[in-house]
C-alpha cells in the first residue's frame, strides 16, 4: 500500500489537483490500482454542474493518468518525474461519478518506448465500470 504522503514523494501533483488518495496494489512495470474518494466537498462540483454534481470525465482520466504516473515512477530508477499527458486514443464515460463514490483506478502499462508510455485504464465504482481510457503520456523530469 502507498499512502497519500508517500504518493506526494512520487509525483508532483498537489491539492486541488492530486486525484489519487492511495495505491492499493502495484506490480512494477506492469499495473497499479489506485483509490480516489469522491466527496461532496470537491471544488469542481461547484460548477460541474450547478445543482447536479457529476465528476468531470476528464478528471477521471487525470486520476487514471496520475495512477499511471505513480506506476511509472515506482518502476523507474529515477524518481519524481511528471507525467505529461500527450494523447488519448479513446476514452468512454459509461456512468456518472457522483459524491460518495469511491473510484477504483486500474491502470496497465501497455507499451513503453524510452520516456513515452502507453497505458490502458479502467475506473470502477462498486465493481461497475464508469470510465475507460487508452492514453499516452511522457515522463518529464521535475526538479523538487
Amino acid at each position, binding site marked *: 500500500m502507498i499512502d497519500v504522503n508517500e504518493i506526494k514523494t512520487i509525483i*508532483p*501533483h*498537489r*491539492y*486541488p*489537483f*492530486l486525484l489519487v488518495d492511495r495505491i492499493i496494489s502495484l506490480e512494477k512495470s506492469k499495473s497499479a490500482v489506485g483509490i480516489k474518494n469522491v466527496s461532496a466537498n470537491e*471544488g*469542481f462540483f*461547484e*460548477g*460541474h*454542474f*450547478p445543482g447536479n454534481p*457529476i465528476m*468531470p*470525465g*476528464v*478528471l477521471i*482520466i*487525470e486520476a487514471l*493518468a496520475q495512477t499511471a504516473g505513480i506506476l511509472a515512477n515506482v518502476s523507474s530508477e529515477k524518481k519524481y518525474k*511528471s507525467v*505529461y*499527458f*500527450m*494523447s*488519448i*486514443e*479513446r*476514452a*468512454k*464515460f*459509461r456512468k*456518472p461519478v457522483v459524491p460518495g463514490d469511491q473510484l477504483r483506478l486500474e491502470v496497465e502499462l501497455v507499451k513503453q518506448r524510452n520516456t513515452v508510455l502507453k497505458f490502458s485504464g479502467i475506473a470502477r465504482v462498486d465493481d461497475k465500470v464508469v470510465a475507460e481510457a487508452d492514453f499516452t503520456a511522457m515522463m*518529464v523530469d*521535475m*526538479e*523538487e
Partner: protein
Amino acid sequence: MRFLYYDRVTKLEKGKSIEGVKAFSLSEEFLKGHFNRKALVPGVIFIEAMAQLLGWLVIYSYDFKLTPIMSLVEGVKTTSDLRPGFEAKIRGEIISTSKRDTLGRAEVFVGGDKVASVERIIYSHFHKVDPEELRVRFRYYSGLELKEGNE
C-alpha cells in the same frame, strides 16, 4: 473552483459551429497543485474546455431543451507544458446529431499554434432540463445577447 473553461463565446452558428476564448492566468485554482514548484496548465483542462464549449453549441442548437453529457472521446491530442499567461482560442463543430446524441470535433489554438484537438467527441442527450435556467446561464457564461424568439 467553478470548473468553467471558457470566458466568452465569440462566434456561434446554430447546428454548426462555435468559437470562444479562455484566458489562462496564474491565479487559476488548480495551478496551486499542478504543480507547486512550476505552474503548468494540465492537458486535460484543454479537453474539458473543448467539451464545454461544444456542449453549449449542442444546447443552443436544440433551443436549450436538452443537456449533453460527454460519453466518448477519440483521437485526442493535447499539450501539458504551457505556463499560464495566455489566451486560448477554442473552436468546435457538430459533425452529426440525432435525438439521442451528437458527434462533434474541436480544436484549441494558442498564438496560432494548435495545442489540443479532439477528432471525435460524442455527447449523450439528457432531456430533463429547465430551458429557462439554461438560457440564463448561457447568457451569463457566453457574454452573448440572445434575442428572444430568435434562437
